[in-house]
């Protein structure tokens, strides 16, 4: 056993990995966009007047959060076709990871919504606002800033979970590193690079989220 890092090999595989990084970023970005929208829907549905809907969504969120992401990815990709739902690796992957993270984000939103004092809702009734106006103009602008920190955590989280998409053949970083490894029998450089690339993305993202949070709070007149 000896540790020998080969720089020439490192530079040789770098372009391929950077290329794959674009896929990783796209997967995380798309998945997160789906999760943000779907998660808001799941959070609002849990505040609905219709008890049955509220209960069903509550159970769904618990179910998604209590089962592994990788299982959900397999389910969408391999079990889906048995029910006639044939999706490409990319689409299955986005559906699974988006749904998975929407469950987590819905809990973050739910906390944010619960943090808005009851008096704000009552003021909206007193001003005769519709439910839509109440949410869009008053409740969400106050519920989102406290949710931003939690949302940022899951943005980093979804980025770090994209390697799971390699199990169904999405050509993101991990899958590319695996491919390089099995072609060249060298694993040290590709895996190390994958780690470094993830670090190089995660750290600035976390920092940017923090900055964004401060800016939003200041803009909305909160401290």
């Amino acid at each position, binding site marked *: 056993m000896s540790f020998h890092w080969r720089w020439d090999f490192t530079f040789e595989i770098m372009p391929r990995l950077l290329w794959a990084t674009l896929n990783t970023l796209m997967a995380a970005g798309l998945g997160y966009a789906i999760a943000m929208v779907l998660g808001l829907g799941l959070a609002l549905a849990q505040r609905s007047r219709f008890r049955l809907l509220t209960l069903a969504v509550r159970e769904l969120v618990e179910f998604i959060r209590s089962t592994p992401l990788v299982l959900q990815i397999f389910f969408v990709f391999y079990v889906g076709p048995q029910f006639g739902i044939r999706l490409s690796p990319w689409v299955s992957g986005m559906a699974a990871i988006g749904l998975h993270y929407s469950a987590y984000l819905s809990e973050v939103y739910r906390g944010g919504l619960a943090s808005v004092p009851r008096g*704000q809702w*009552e003021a909206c009734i*007193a*001003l005769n606002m*519709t439910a839509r106006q109440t949410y869009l*103009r008053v409740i969400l602008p106050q519920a989102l800033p406290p949710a931003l920190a939690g949302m940022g955590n899951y943005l980093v989280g979804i980025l770090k979970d994209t390697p799971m998409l390699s199990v169904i053949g999405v050509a993101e970083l991990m899958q590319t590193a695996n491919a390089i490894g099995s072609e060249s029998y060298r694993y040290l450089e590709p895996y190390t690079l994958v780690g470094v690339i993830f670090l190089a993305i995660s750290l600035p993202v976390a920092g940017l989220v923090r900055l964004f949070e401060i800016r939003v709070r200041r803009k*909305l007149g909160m401290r």
Partner: protein
Amino acid sequence: MEDMSNYPLELTGPDVPMVRFMNVTKSYGALVVLDKLDLDVAPGEMVTIIGPSGSGKTTVLRMLMTLEPINGGVIYVDGQPLTHMPRGGRLVPADARHLRKVRASIGMCFQQFNLFPHMTALQNCMEGPVQVLGLSRAEARARSEELLELVGMIDKKDQHPSRLSGGQQQRVAIARALAMRPKVMLFDEVTSALDPEVIGEVTAVIRKLVAEHNLTMLMVTHQMGFARDISDRICFFFGGRIEEQGPPDVLFGSPRRDRTRQFLSAVKEAI
């Protein structure tokens, strides 16, 4: 189920009250908060509700603002049923659309102000007129600035609530409610959360409203001197009922009921 055939579909005639509580009951489970309340408020009248805590005073305002559903009876506003709507010749519980229509004539100020913290004072006032009444931004701004002037807050119109004192926030909240041009204004313990030295600036605004505007007002307060000065009528609530009511000089000067006397002397001692 209550027999709704005893309630008129609307109030007509020469002396239609601005607000009528007819046989209104409110309970939380087994606890009856208001027991078959009958209360009329005439157009332009200023009625103040006083009473010990738990007597149902605030509940009266909250039901009128439709913040709380009622369990029996009907509330009418400007002759129209608020809590109910006519359908097939009788009254049925109001749906959201009917509530929005009738609620438009009611405005409310709260103990905790409830200003929108992410909007400036001016934006708070403009929000309802622009979003709900559909006014242009220019119209809404003109109306809001006029009202902020009225409550003496025009200098602070671009401040967020977090930068304002309690008294200043409450004055903005009054302007915000007035910007909707309500026929009835509800003041729910609007000075109770304020430091003693700023209570006067809020009561001064309400005095001005009473003197210069022909608004119908319902107020719950612990400021007995203030209530006595500006009210046309005082209602003393006790145990979910009106124990005694009358003009301020009569009710404060020579109350007829023991409970009223006990309450007033207890309040006087506290001061």
